[in-house]
């Protein structure tokens, strides 16, 4: 159960299934279709991890950071709560409701907190985000037996050891309504089943679910460590999440540029680009070569307004996108999309390294003015 007794491998190795579903109008729906969809890909996981991230589930506390916590024991909880009280105004604290569920054994203590950074300690929103990141790092590294599942606003991560559908039932996800959901079923080869190690991995609003194995993990991690990230989990997913945080939040790159870093076009393609585009791509690879995610992966990255699907540049892991009215889907396999949506309009398979970006409607206009190369929907999309 404890992190300390996990195997001392370089990192966790795992195969997986991923599924994401978004209502681009921001209308909320409960977790049922997510459970159905991820259960449909059961063959891709092995019961050693499953999890969900849901956005829009706490509208009444939308302005507060919601910490989903796991504790090994009461001591860890008390220590963490002391820490919270020293740095935040705690607006709410409660046990996350669960139900007994076959296949989900020995759950840790699961709590959630609605927190406001103490005003005297931060001034700007950006500072508040950094403040929260530091708090997460502090808890994960310094407080024995405590681990932060998620730390974003109006969202939460529910995860654990078991098949994802069982984890979903355990957490009563049918009782939550969100406008974006992502799910993950895990097939680890070397983990001893620690709840914190399940996916999604989250920091602030960003959640990552991931299928595959990043062969460049060693250098990705060393690169991020240079920027102060402490990788405690030994998972590719953690590294990807910090990479997202660095590139988007700290360095201010766009999602498209981030995709060009994580799944850089080949030099032969860059060489054929028009001069200005070539210059950008060359500089991205030169500067962020150590963040190239090399090896097979497909990921869904989500935040409060976006759901982004991406595969490695030679597409060694599968990813299918689907669209049906207000709903966007991203999945490891096509069948579960059909299973949860019989009115499906279309599905398509993106090119390797080409991001699928689904965005909330209020941002739709902005996307469409960027042109087709930004949003990788088929040409018919604007119709």
């Amino acid at each position: 159960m404890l992190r300390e007794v996990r195997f001392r491998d370089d990192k966790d190795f795992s195969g997986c299934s991923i599924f994401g579903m978004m209502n681009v109008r921001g209308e909320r729906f409960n977790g049922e279709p997510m459970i159905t969809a991820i259960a449909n890909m059961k063959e891709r996981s092995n019961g050693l991890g499953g999890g969900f991230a849901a956005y829009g589930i706490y509208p009444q506390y939308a302005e507060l950071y919601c910490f989903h916590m796991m504790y090994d024991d009461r001591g860890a909880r008390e220590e963490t709560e002391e820490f919270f009280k020293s740095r935040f105004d705690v607006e709410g604290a409660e046990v996350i409701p669960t139900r007994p569920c076959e296949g989900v054994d020995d759950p840790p203590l699961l709590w959630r907190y609605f927190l406001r950074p103490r005003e005297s300690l931060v001034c700007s929103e950006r500072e508040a985000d950094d403040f929260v990141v530091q708090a997460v790092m502090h808890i994960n590294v310094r407080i024995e037996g405590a681990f932060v599942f998620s730390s974003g606003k109006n969202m939460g991560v529910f995860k654990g050891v078991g098949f994802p559908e069982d984890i979903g039932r355990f957490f009563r996800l049918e009782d939550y309504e969100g406008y974006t959901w992502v799910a993950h079923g895990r097939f680890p080869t070397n983990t001893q089943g620690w709840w914190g190690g399940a996916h999604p991995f989250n920091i602030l609003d960003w959640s990552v679910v991931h299928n595959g194995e990043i062969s460049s993990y060693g250098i990705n991690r060393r690169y991020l460590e240079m920027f102060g990230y402490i990788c405690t989990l030994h998972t590719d997913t953690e590294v990807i999440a910090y990479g997202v945080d660095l590139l988007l939040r700290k360095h201010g790159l766009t999602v498209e540029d981030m995709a060009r870093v994580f799944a850089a076009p080949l030099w032969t393609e860059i060489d054929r680009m028009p001069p200005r585009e070539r210059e950008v791509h060359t500089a991205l690879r030169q500067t962020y070569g150590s963040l190239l995610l090399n090896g097979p992966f497909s990921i869904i990255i989500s935040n409060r307004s976006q759901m982004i699907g991406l595969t490695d540049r030679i597409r060694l892991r599968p990813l299918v996108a689907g669209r049906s009215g207000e709903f966007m889907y991203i999945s490891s396999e096509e069948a579960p999309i059909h299973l949860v949506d019989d009115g499906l309009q279309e599905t398509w398979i993106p090119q390797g390294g080409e991001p699928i970006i689904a965005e909330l409607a209020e941002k739709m206009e902005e996307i469409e003015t960027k042109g087709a190369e930004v949003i990788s929907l088929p040409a018919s999309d604007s119709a």
Partner: protein
Amino acid sequence: MIGRLEGLKSYLLPQFLIDRDDYRCIRCEVCARQCAFEVHWYDEEEDAVFADESKCVGCLRCATLCPTNALVVRHNPTQHPPNANWTREVLQNIYKQSETGGVLLTGMGCDTDYPIYWDRIVLDASQVTNPSIDPLREPMELRTYLGAKPDALKVGRKGGKPSLETRITPQLKLETPIMFSAISYGAISYNACESLARAAAEAGTYYNTGEGGLHRNLYKYGEHTICQVASGRFGVHADYLEVAAALEIKIGQGAKPGIGGHLPGEKVSAEISRTRMIPKGTDALSPAPHHDIYSIEDLAQLIYALKEATHWSKPVSVKIAAVHNSAAIASGMVRAGADIIVLDGIRGGTGAAPTMIRDNVGIPIELALAAVDDRLRQEGIRNRASIVVAGGIRSSADVVKAIALGADAVYIGTAALVALGCHVCQKCYTGKCNWGIATQDPYLSKRLNPEVGARRLVNLLRAWSHEIMEMLGGMGINAIESLRGNRLRLRGVGLTREELDILGIKHAGA
């Protein structure tokens, strides 16, 4: 009472013995003509070929070219009395010095048996959880850019298209992460220089002039030339700085850290005189330090002088010998503005160095590299400079291990010369290289045809590059930048805890 003992029988034993199979020998005299050390001679009266083995350096030119394989050159098996301290090498050195009063001189890299960490490090490969990649069909990228990189990029939008707002400083573009080390015209022949230049151009990489200036005829390869600025400043002038793809300040050399050098006047021919811009026949002395660099801020001054002189159009590299405090020194070099830092390990080669220096000063490159890469990362400045390592890179596997430890690219010197025919006899300083490499004797140097030489070098780079791709593919990686500094793909075998810690790798099985 110091002086060379002349006319007395030397106590030195011949290093090599030459067995000549008289039945095979056809008296063609190839051996006699090929040996600049005048080992072989033909006696017409006796119709036999004889050898003065005391002159033989073991370069194997005769044995290689003998059309009937009549010659066997072997290490002299005569044994000194067994003694772990007073070994043959030790005794022979003392005899040599007592007969001459001189400093022991040698060529090439350190040949003593310090641990070669490359041979104690093994590589990883993918099995099941991720696919290995077949480089024969799948893309496999070795392209490497050397130079300072920004910590973060700013990308704006112009007309809906991304547009770069951060200025990237000049970079060297390598199609394979292997360059040819600094070797001066003077240390090696013009034909050897031309071979390196042509090969670098063809293979999309760089060679390095060393401190001997750049021959006019080779200016056309400028885009693939790194011009060195060393303590002697030989041949350093505006055109030389202009034509180079990059400039390299040479502080030190792995074979002789802390030591200057000198090209004896007899080697300063008309061409070398023109290239080095010194009078013909005078000794070309390289001072031990740069006399405008007595401290780190002085290095910064020279770096920026070179940048200013070349309009900030090319990266500036700084090369040091790997010594005890390399990590701290490297950090200072990066902060002083070096775009590329070159570390030359204890096994790095030379045309001439005092034997005691070569074999006893400096540290193995593997340890220096690991320490420097770690330090620059700890200080958050690893992006600001590329790391190139030199000194004892013998194969593509060494290259892969160096890159995984943290190097951006490697320099090869000895390996390149071996490709040109060098047999590592370590007598470069005599100027009598029978392979036409380390010589200025036109009779000898014409043995190396630059076109053939370039072909051999390009072949070597092609073969190594392919092997690198195979190893990358095995690890499931298809771009070299994903290997760079990726020490998780390395494991040590038979190393101590301390060595593993310094190398930043785990032991095999862990």
